[in-house]
């Protein structure tokens, strides 16, 4: 049974109502026993938790330091291709968008790798649009062994694959798979994904099951904050996480909290997640799940990122390019979305040290294990 069956049993309207009917008493109770308790997550994500934000932040900071120490992992995305066979109205890579399409050749890939290595990174996130025929399993089978020669940690954020395909890639050195549901509301999902295989909500929803069954070390979940009510989407992601942790107990989990950003031909956020809302969400997840890894991308502004660093985040990117070949030939015309924090990795390291945090470039060696 994949999460799809469990998801069908959830009454989404009822969950939404429960979030909005929480009171300060529910929040205070949740703060007493937040860990692993979905009822507490409901309260901590609710509007009633807003006056408790400082208490949540203090607790989140403390828990994060206890579990992860002062360490903050650094990673960089490497865009392999912007080809895509889907139509998603929030994404710059959408099929109908008129932009120059590109898939990295081996020499181009090596050039990107060289630049990223020179900057000191050892953890890489391979990203592509979702184009099964041109950038599918055969392409990944060629790319991952090349990348693995240079990086100790290799994560993949591409279209959902079959279990056997993930298994093959694990054998070639794949360590992590990020697969974002975008929104857990089927109606909203259908509205934003109008063409291509990504339209299949349930296939995407069952992807983490296939990833875990294939023996991938870490799975990243995420929602695109702004497509629908972020509180409800976050809670449903919490349900998904709880299901996966119980069933696939050997796997590590991370979440990513991207806010919808302007992009070529894209939509503007329907439901705005404000800065204090994002802080509430980070803290709620940290209190709910102290061992969860939380990633922060360059979508957020430098000042805001500085303040978010100590609150519960465990992994950050810095100096990112969101286009294929973008490290060698910076040029924004191929970008997936606009980034807000343009600081280099070195600048981020200085900021981290100012905040008493220790930049970790290397924290894994699957080749050894």
């Amino acid at each position, binding site marked *: 049974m994949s999460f799809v069956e469990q998801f069908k049993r959830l009454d989404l309207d009822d969950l939404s109502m429960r979030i909005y009917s929480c009171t300060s008493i529910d929040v205070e109770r949740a703060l007493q026993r937040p860990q692993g308790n979905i009822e507490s997550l409901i309260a901590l994500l609710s509007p009633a938790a807003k006056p408790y934000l400082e208490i949540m932040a203090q607790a989140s900071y403390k828990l994060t*330091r*206890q*579990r*992860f*120490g*002062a*360490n903050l992992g650094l990673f960089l995305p490497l865009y392999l291709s912007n080809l895509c066979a889907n139509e998603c109205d929030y994404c710059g890579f959408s099929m109908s968008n008129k932009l120059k399409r590109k898939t990295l050749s081996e020499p181009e890939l090596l050039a990107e790798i060289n630049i990223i290595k020179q900057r000191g990174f*050892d953890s890489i996130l391979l990203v592509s649009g979702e184009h099964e025929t041109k950038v599918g399993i055969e392409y990944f089978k060629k790319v991952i062994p090349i990348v693995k020669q240079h990086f*100790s940690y290799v994560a993949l954020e591409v279209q959902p694959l079959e279990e056997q395909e993930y298994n093959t890639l694990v054998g070639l050195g794949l360590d992590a798979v990020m697969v974002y549901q975008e929104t857990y509301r089927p109606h909203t999902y259908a509205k934003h994904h109008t063409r291509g295989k990504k339209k299949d909500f349930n296939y995407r929803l069952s992807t983490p099951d296939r990833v875990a069954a294939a023996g991938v070390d870490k799975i990243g979940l995420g929602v695109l904050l702004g497509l629908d009510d972020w509180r409800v989407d976050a809670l449903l992601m919490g349900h998904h996480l709880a299901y996966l*942790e119980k069933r696939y*107990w*050997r*796997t*590590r989990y991370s979440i990513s909290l991207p806010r919808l950003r302007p992009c070529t031909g894209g939509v503007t956020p329907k439901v705005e997640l404000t800065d204090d809302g994002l802080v509430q969400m980070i803290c709620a997840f940290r209190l709910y799940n102290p*061992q969860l890894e939380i990633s922060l991308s360059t979508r957020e502004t430098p000042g805001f990122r500085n303040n978010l660093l100590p609150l519960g985040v465990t992994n950050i990117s810095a100096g990112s390019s969101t286009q294929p070949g973008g490290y060698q030939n910076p040029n924004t015309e191929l970008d997936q979305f606009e980034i807000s924090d343009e600081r280099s990795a070195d600048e981020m390291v200085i900021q981290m*040290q100012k905040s*008493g*945090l*220790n930049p*970790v*470039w*290397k*924290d*894994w*060696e699957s080749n*050894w*294990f």
Partner: protein
Amino acid sequence: MLTIAGHQFESRLFTGTGKFSHSKTMLAAIEASQSQLVTLAMKRIDHNKDNDDLLSPLQAMGVKLLPNTAGARTAKEAIFAAELANEMLGTKWIKLEIHPDPKYLMPDAIETLKAAEVLCARGFTVLPYVHADPVLCYRLEEVGCAAVMPLGSPIGSNQGLATEPFLEIIIEQANVPVIVDAGIGAPSQACKAMEMGADAVLVNTAIASSAAPIIMAECFNTAVISGRNAYLAGLGGVVKQAQHTSPLTQFLNV
């Protein structure tokens, strides 16, 4: 003086290298702790770099390095990591850690025993991190482990000696040093472990994550010394009734 596999340690406080905000703070805290055995995760060592900012100062301090296999989920993975530690750091001492559960980092008893057997046979000085299981500790001793490292409570939890009744049995039965590892969150808990007769304690999170790691390291050092001295001096038994220092019936013996 504590002897493990022929190596003598004046300090019975072992420390770690993870979770510090800066390598300078880490080195100062280790110095303040007086620790002579320091564990470090193999997964953090970058084999493409010289790692001199971490390793050289530790070596210059004269501490013994104890690479650990954190990240390994099977015996096979841990054995491979131990072999690499030997190759890269030139030491056959290994803290054997196998935890396939990333949530509570609970040690896998079956895989640990398998790996210990192989590594001991290959001449490693194996210090296995295990649950506080007296039979498992016996089994690890039988395959040749130089010490056992039972947990006080889950790693990094600061819950102290939650496994106290089982630690007591392990300490009573063991023929090798018992190092209480994991979960010790306060100097008083380290002191208690030493009062119970543990040969040493390993503390990382409580020092590294404290607001003042150097001061906290000093506190742990003195707590461990006090606990050990109290153990050697012999703690009094615990009874419910008061025992008068000047007994009323003493005249009958005159």
